[in-house]
């Protein structure tokens, strides 16, 4: 025991479950025998409001500087314990919990549960004794401004959503103007109209600052207050923001392999090239297999509608039309668009008109005559450079890798940086818009709150022990450790998410962790194993 520490122990009256798996009084007497403990009390239902005030009152009265709460799982009750700690004037993280319900009363039979409860409470006391107050900022101010990077619809929608929530937005585009939604293929035509209106409203929205013909060349700062360097006509423009949304433009193109240009294909007086074949992109479309996408169907429909006597054929292995896109597929069939299921990439012979040698799934080998052959391609050219600059890795198919494990699929490993994945669902404009809204929504959560929680269970380098071996820099999923000016590693607290991977790895044992220090983990195991050897 260090001289200054004084520990209070609060046992919830319901800690033993409703049936009371163990005698709380006996547990109290046991805890009170510990020389580390200043007081022990049984609190009537600590999660009730009267229980909370009683707990606060007890902690204040006994002037302890930390406490152990023996109750139900901290998994759901931790915020409550934090509040009790704060209200008692202690460090908000100045407690340890003993999970006496889920890890004891509910899972062990009575006599065993009573013994186990003592062990759990002793472990928590031992851990609390070694607790070191961590650096912690509950409400670190966040720059209430967002930077959206990208040219297309996704960037526009994300900017609009944030602006409408009263957040100032810098929309940083490479191009001189928008890529208008007309370039996109929508599932629903009303939706297209609305998107066009949104993009027009965006251009004159007072909260939106358009930075056109600009390229982001630098990214620094820490989560909460980022700095962007934007190059524009040879000048460098600094931009400050609290959140970044990466929304690169997804270019969808129908590349002409044979015959008429796409523009002519979409004009109403298509003279030649009336037999049109649309092929799925073998690569670059992002589709795992050679699927006919809903986008290609929409394109086929446009061709068919402009020139009714044309013969439009879509070739592919599967017809990929998720959810409500099914209706587009049906509509296209009604319009007389032909779908051919092919097993392999067709062989093109001759110029326009040409012959496609295909292997039809049911009919076997076929030769299809066509005047025009186009192939669907899609590409997000800005994505790789954004990935490098912002440290948001890419997956194998060239999309952003996000934190899917947390059901917040547009959050990235970089706190405060949100990314729209360009190839989701049907990959129609609507999917892109939903992705953009989701990213905007998470950015808005951070910026509306205006503050972020920093510190707590974070890692910290002891510089005199550090060998600057770079192990932590290389392993951290969040890019938190850097080699500082002194040539030693240091951990950017705003980026640290407290996983402790670097702590377990550091070959020089130079990284310590608040809340789960080596000494604390050791003490817990020692208490658990007391008397075993």
């Amino acid at each position, binding site marked *: 025991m260090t001289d200054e520490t004084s520990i209070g122990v609060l046992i919830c009256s319901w800690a033993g479950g409703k049936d009371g798996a163990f005698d709380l009084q006996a547990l109290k007497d046991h805890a009170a025998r510990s020389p580390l403990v200043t007081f022990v009390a049984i609190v009537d239902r600590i999660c009730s409001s009267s229980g909370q005030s009683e707990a606060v009152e007890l902690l204040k009265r006994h002037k302890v500087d930390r406490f152990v709460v023996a109750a139900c799982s901290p998994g759901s009750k931790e915020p409550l314990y934090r509040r009790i700690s704060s209200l008692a004037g202690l460090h908000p993280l100045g407690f340890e919990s003993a999970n006496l319900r889920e890890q004891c009363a509910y899972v062990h039979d009575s006599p065993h549960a009573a013994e186990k409860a003592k062990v759990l409470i002793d472990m928590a006391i031992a851990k609390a004794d070694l607790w070191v107050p961590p650096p912690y900022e509950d409400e670190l101010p966040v720059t209430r401004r967002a930077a959206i990077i990208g040219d297309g619809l996704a960037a526009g929608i994300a900017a609009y959503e944030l602006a409408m929530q009263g957040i100032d937005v810098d929309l940083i585009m490479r191009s001189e103007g928008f890529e208008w939604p007309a370039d996109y293929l929508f599932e629903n035509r009303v939706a297209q109209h609305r998107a066009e209106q949104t993009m027009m409203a965006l251009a004159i929205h007072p909260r939106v600052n358009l930075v056109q013909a600009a390229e982001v060349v630098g990214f620094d700062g820490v989560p909460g207050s980022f700095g962007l360097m934007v190059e524009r006509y040879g000048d460098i423009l600094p931009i400050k923001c609290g959140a970044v949304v990466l929304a690169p433009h997804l270019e969808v193109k129908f590349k002409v392999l044979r015959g008429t240009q796409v523009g002519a294909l979409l004009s109403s007086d298509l003279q030649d090239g009336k037999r049109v074949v649309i092929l799925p992109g073998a690569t670059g479309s992002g589709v795992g297999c050679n699927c006919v996408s809903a986008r290609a169907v929409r394109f086929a429909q446009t061709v068919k509608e402009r020139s009714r006597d044309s013969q439009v054929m879509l070739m592919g292995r599967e017809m990929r039309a998720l959810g409500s896109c099914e209706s587009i597929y049906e509509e296209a069939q009604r319009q007389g668009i032909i779908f051919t299921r092919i097993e392999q990439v067709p062989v093109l012979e001759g110029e326009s008109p040409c012959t496609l040698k295909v292997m039809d799934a049911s009919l076997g080998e076929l030769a299809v005559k066509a005047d025009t052959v186009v192939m669907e391609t899609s590409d997000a050219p800005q994505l790789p450079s954004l990935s490098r600059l912002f440290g948001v890795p890419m997956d194998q198919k060239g999309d952003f890798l996000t934190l899917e494990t947390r059901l917040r699929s547009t959050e990235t490993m970089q706190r405060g940086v949100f990314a729209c994945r360009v190839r989701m669902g049907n990959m129609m404009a609507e999917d892109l818009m939903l992705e953009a809204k989701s990213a905007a929504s998470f950015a808005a959560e951070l910026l509306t709150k205006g503050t972020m929680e920093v510190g707590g269970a974070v890692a910290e380098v002891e510089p005199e022990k550090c060998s600057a071996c770079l192990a932590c820099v290389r392993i951290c999923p969040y890019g938190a450790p850097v080699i500082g000016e002194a040539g030693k590693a240091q951990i950017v607290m705003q980026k640290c998410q407290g996983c402790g991977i670097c702590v377990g790895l550091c*070959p*020089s044992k130079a990284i310590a962790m608040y809340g789960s220090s080596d000494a604390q983990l050791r003490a817990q195991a020692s208490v658990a194993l007391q008397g075993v050897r």
Partner: protein
Amino acid sequence: MIIGEQKPFKELCALLDGHKEILVAGCRSCVAICLAGGEKEVGVVAESLRLYSDLNGKEWRVDEVTVERQCEKEFVLDLIERTKGKDAVLSLACGVGAQSVQSLYPGIRVLPGLNTSNMGAPEEQGVFVEKCGGCGDCVLHLTGGICPIVRCAKSLLNGPCGGSQNGKCEISPDVPCAWDQIYHSLERLGRLDLLEELIPPKNWLPSRSGGPRKIVRPEAVLTPVEKELRGAKE
């Protein structure tokens, strides 16, 4: 940096047989970086030894320490308290470190915990590759910055042998042919002409064949007068 790797645990136990008071000594420099002898490895080895001793009734008392650089006298001298009463030091530093401990504590047996392997660099986290042979007669200026002495299995100085296949060395498909790399490096530099410069038979005298190597930098060495003025340190 110097690359080393730990001896198998069984060998460590055999080395320590017959000793009682043991100090496991690590180094925060090269061997920490190559994950062989830093404070964490010292902890792992020391704890493993204690566990082994407890299980086998060896009654070893194992202490542990890690110094900044075991090859430097000043740092090693800091161990004076920690070595008191010890009958063995298990050095997890490179051979240089182990020797400097032995020279400063001549009464204690210093046992090598590592096999010192080579001079190299981390290729990625956890992978260390030999890069320099320490031949004492460097030709990197002629070979596009790639050492033919260690990176060519035969240490050839004037082009590849017949075993170079598709850029790989015949000893293993995982080993790139150094001369293939040299060619491409010079190509990138626009200095393929350097390949025409014949590297004469190498003078191996500065290498190991001339006995232990010693490099003296007169401008850095303290003169006898300076030494006298600083007073005797040892």
